[in-house]
């Protein structure tokens, strides 16, 4: 809502500068998005009079205008057809600046020197008119800055009005709040209208009373033409385009009082009257914007007496009965429509207008007739409307003002202010909330004006009092929170720990977009079957709610590759989505942890660089597992979509598969445009966090010496190293403190399908130095167990 300061002063006298007023508007909840000074860009443009118009010697369509501008005369070239001797115009000399930052200079046009130019409305930023030079009032003083003559020193408050404040969708409504704020009088003059004739010279039938609780219509004779400059200027400042005197008046009253109205051409209606009814299924209407609208029985129509649709009520008029240059009489409709209905139809048709924006918030049902009178008053002034019949007013069930019980003590208690009853009452009166005493000291009834449909409950009154005293003036306190301790849940702490460990390992956290394309899903070998999708995404190619995060990370890898960065270490913690579990509405939504390592592991210059390999990924996994102190996590070689066969494993927690780790299939990388090699894992976070923990009980640290020994076995390739280690650990029992594989070796001598694994063992007893015999026994037990369990040979 754009509100010119000069218009506000029709209703309230403001003795404050624009910035102070803007601040007040902010404090009232009428947020000032911008403070425009439309004349600020017009610099150095003067009032001038045309002395003589002469033909241009070299061009038929151009003329030379000799002009005087107070302290001088000069000549400009002009192409406009409307210049005549004696016309008073806006003259932009060389050096003057016009809106858009355009600065004039002397130049020759077809061989004749033009000393600046004469301006059209559009060139001054005042409207679209560009066919002719703007004519100023002939008694304007020559040489004056045109901004003085055109009233362009005005400022415009561009307000963002919240949906609850229908009353502030009008200049008068904004003025009312300002008057209360500054403590000055506020008045909206009562329109004065000459009435003659009978009200029932047209017919009005309202079929859908619940949708049009109040409906008024009257016949008005008009003489079409442009509206006067002052009205055009105000409309333009308020952001509306002047059209014709009749249309401009209806728009003007809408901006001024917040009440939309519509003028139908009387002669183009079939029968002098209006019918308000619901649309029939499949009925159509071509609206003013020349679009044919298909209607439903939930849409409200204004029809002519023949019941032919002429307007979608409260939203837009029809093309058929639009006023035009030859209009001599109108039927003026001013009504109160039920907000919900307007909102539904407007949303369904995708058709929003200045009128619908006001009706769907709720106009003042009891201000309808005054608005009708105001339109007629202005039509008399600007469209020579003669005295006409009074309005027909269909208002079978007048809407009463809301009566709200208010406890002043409660108002103070919610706001956190010490307020007595008188202060609460005094805060409400200036915004036309009437106070009715109940006889009880601690309660009164607040009677809300019908232009404030947002006021129905005590809490609404609390808000009004808060607005009036200023939310910022409420003393700031802190709650006394003694009953609950703050903190993170164990799960939240574990998730932070996982992220911190990953960061420590050199991985950076990525945030990829959860909406991806079908191709993103299928390219990693996943199915679209159980996916959930957005139905109305503006980004139509990416409707799938990700079933996995890996595709997103691969896209990020491709993005980085495009920037010449191919060595990446990423992780992401986030939600993934699947089809809802049985009998549930919402999707299966869970947290995933994903790790992706790509390119080279850079160890130079001291050590050699090498490509990432699966063990980089399992290292990361094991570090996370260790940080969470999990006791039963293992990897089990398995094929998984998206990973190279034979280079992937299932991640198993407490015997359940929760994800996969491995080397990403080069075909998948290629499909995403991610280069080189990549490894990683994706797992379901919650079973990991819920995995069985190691026994944290402390075991005293042995003070006795350790004995280190190495063993090497030759075994079948199919035997996992983890199985060998498990066998060794079992055989080693309590005396075996540590066991790890330190070498893997293959050769022709070992035979195809066989490999050697070398294992380092560390033995130690808690309570003694191990004797040689004990050591030999346990060592041999380890050897025997591996040979037996895995068909292995001891390698000497």
């Amino acid at each position, binding site marked *: 809502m754009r509100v010119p300061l000069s218009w506000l002063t029709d209703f309230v006298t403001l003795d404050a500068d624009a910035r102070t007023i803007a601040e007040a508007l902010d404090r009232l909840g009428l*947020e000032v998005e911008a403070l425009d000074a439309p004349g600020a860009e017009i610099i150095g443009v003067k009032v001038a009079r045309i002395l003589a118009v002469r033909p241009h010697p070299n061009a038929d369509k151009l003329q030379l205008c000799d002009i005087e501008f107070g302290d001088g005369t000069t000549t400009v070239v002009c192409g406009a057809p409307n210049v005549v001797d004696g016309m008073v115009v806006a003259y932009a000399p060389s050096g003057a600046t016009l809106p858009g930052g355009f600065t004039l200079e002397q130049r020759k046009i077809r061989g004749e020197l033009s000393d600046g130019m004469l301006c059209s409305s559009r060139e001054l930023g005042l409207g679209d008119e560009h066919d002719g030079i703007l004519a100023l009032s002939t008694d304007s003083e020559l040489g004056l800055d045109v901004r003085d003559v055109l009233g362009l020193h005005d400022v415009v408050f561009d307000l963002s009005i919240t949906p609850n404040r229908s009353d502030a969708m009008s200049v008068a409504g904004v003025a009312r709040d300002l008057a209360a704020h500054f403590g000055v009088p506020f008045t909206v003059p009562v329109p004065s209208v000459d009435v003659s004739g009978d009200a029932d010279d047209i017919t009005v039938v309202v079929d859908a009373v619940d949708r049009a609780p109040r409906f008024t219509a009257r016949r008005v004779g008009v003489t079409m033409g442009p509206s006067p400059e002052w009205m055009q200027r105000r409309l333009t400042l308020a952001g509306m385009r002047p059209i014709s005197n009749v249309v401009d008046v209806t728009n003007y009253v809408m901006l001024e009082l917040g009440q939309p109205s519509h003028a139908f051409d009387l002669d183009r209606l079939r029968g002098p009257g209006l019918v308000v009814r619901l649309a029939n299924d499949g009925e159509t209407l071509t609206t003013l914007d020349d679009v044919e609208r298909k209607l439903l029985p939930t849409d409200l129509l204004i029809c002519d007496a023949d019941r032919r649709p002429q307007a979608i009520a409260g939203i837009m008029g029809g093309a058929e009965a639009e006023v035009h240059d030859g209009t001599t009489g109108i039927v003026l409709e001013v009504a109160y429509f039920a907000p919900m209905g307007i909102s539904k139809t407007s949303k369904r048709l995708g058709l929003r207008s200045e009128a619908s924006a006001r009706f769907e918030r709720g106009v003042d049902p009891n201000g309808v007739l005054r608005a009708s009178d105001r339109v007629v008053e202005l039509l008399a002034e600007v469209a020579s409307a003669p005295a006409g019949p009074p309005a027909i007013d269909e208002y079978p069930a007048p809407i009463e003002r809301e009566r709200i019980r208010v406890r002043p003590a409660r108002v103070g208690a919610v706001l956190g202010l010490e307020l007595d009853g008188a202060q609460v009452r005094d805060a409400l009166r200036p915004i036309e909330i009437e106070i009715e005493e109940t006889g009880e000291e601690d309660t009164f009834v607040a009677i809300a004006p019908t232009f404030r449909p947002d006021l129905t409950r005590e809490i609404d009154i609390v*808000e009004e009092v808060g607005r009036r005293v200023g939310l910022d003036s409420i003393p*700031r306190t802190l709650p006394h929170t003694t009953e609950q301790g703050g903190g993170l*849940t164990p799960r939240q702490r574990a998730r932070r720990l996982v992220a911190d460990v990953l960061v420590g390992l050199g991985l950076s956290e990525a*945030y990829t*977009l959860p*909406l991806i394309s079908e191709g993103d899903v299928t390219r990693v070998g996943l199915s679209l079957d159980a996916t959930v999708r957005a139905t109305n995404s503006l980004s139509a190619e990416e409707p799938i709610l990700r079933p996995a995060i890996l595709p997103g990370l691969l896209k990020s890898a491709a993005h980085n590759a495009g920037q010449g960065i191919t060595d990446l270490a990423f992780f992401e913690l986030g939600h993934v989505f699947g089809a809802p579990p049985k009998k549930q509405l919402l999707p299966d939504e869970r947290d995933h942890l994903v790790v992706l390592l790509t390119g080279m592991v850079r160890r130079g210059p001291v050590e050699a660089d090498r490509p990432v390999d699966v063990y980089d990924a399992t290292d990361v996994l094991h570090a996370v597992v260790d940080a969470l102190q999990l006791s039963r996590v293992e990897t089990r070689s398995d094929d998984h979509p998206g990973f190279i066969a034979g280079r992937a494993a299932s991640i198993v927690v407490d015997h359940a598969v929760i994800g996969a780790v491995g080397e990403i299939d080069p075909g998948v990388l290629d499909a995403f445009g991610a280069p080189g090699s990549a490894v990683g894992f994706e797992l379901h976070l919650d079973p990991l966090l819920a995995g069985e923990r190691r026994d944290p009980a402390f075991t005293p640290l042995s003070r006795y010496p350790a004995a280190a020994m190495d063993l090497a076995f030759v075994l079948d390739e199919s035997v996992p190293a983890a199985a060998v280690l498990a066998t060794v650990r079992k055989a080693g029992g309590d005396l075996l403190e540590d066991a790890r594989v330190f070498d893997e070796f293959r050769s022709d001598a070992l035979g195809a399908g066989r490999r050697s694994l070398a294992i380092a063992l560390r033995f130690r007893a808690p309570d003694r130095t191990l004797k040689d015999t004990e050591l030999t026994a346990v060592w041999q037990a380890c050897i025997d167990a591996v040979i037996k369990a895995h068909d292995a040979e001891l390698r000497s």
Partner: protein
Amino acid sequence: MDLSELDLGAAQAAIAAADTVDELADLRKRFLGKKGAVNRAKESIKTLDPAERPKVGQAVNAFTTGVTEALEGREAEIAPPGSAEPPLDLTLGSHGRRRGHLHLVTQCQRELEDVFVSLGYRVAEGPEVEDDWHNFEALNFPVGHPARAMQDTLYVDLGEPEQVMLRTHTSPVQIRLMETQPPPIYSVMPGRTYRNETVDARHSAVFHQIEGLAVDRGLTFGDLAGTLETFTSAYFGKKVTSRLLPSYFPFTEPSAEFAITCVFCDAAGCRVCSYTGWIELGGCGMVDPNVFLAVGIDPEEYTGFAFGFGLERMPMLRYGVEPIKTFFDNDSRFLSRY
């Protein structure tokens, strides 16, 4: 076998007596060289009865360790490390190990969570796909309410049309919390949110919010204002002050926008704050009684307040990160910057 050659005490004495680097090199050769005492002893182990091997092996290891330490110790005394070799160029590089980085939004989320945890709040979470009840209806957005149009909703193909959506704000977590936990409630709710918006420098279809909710007996708008001030000065510093201007949200009343004095120009006015001296951070207000009724809390007994703001906005303000898309491209140069 003859283990007399492996007399550690004698070896240590010989090493201690050496005075030059050359002498030490000779001793090293004698004990540890290819044909030195240790290797000869190892050879002989193979000839032993397997039962004796571990014992002898240990003795050899102990001798090796002892001699090595003695040699290194004496070497360090005669010729401190680096004195003979050219110094190492420590600017040469490294083994390439680098720390990773938390995403900037996570960093901001944690900072804010920690501020509120210290004020006695817990952290609550909820699903990103929501039903109409939690995202709108229970928050006092009835069907057809114009305020629904304030948020461009991304719907999901589940249930009846427009019944299931990607949450447009973190506020549904408030409802889930109040449905399951009796007051008092003091919680913050960070999370991912979605709008069907055209993406531009400052708007993204996907973004993050953090929301706070307090429900207790006797909470006031003053408590809300005080809480926000405590938070803003904890996060932005004492110099920053906050202000509250009336606004409208269906689920709070009275509602307000809260703003802080511009952190870039100390409220003098600059490009970032559009020369107003103020930066809008988010919305807040007292929990609307209709919301309490929806979740079965008596609005006469309890009052509450809620506040929320965008997480990306904080680093955008602090560091000038732009466009917002930067947060989701995962450009390695960006991630490792913070």
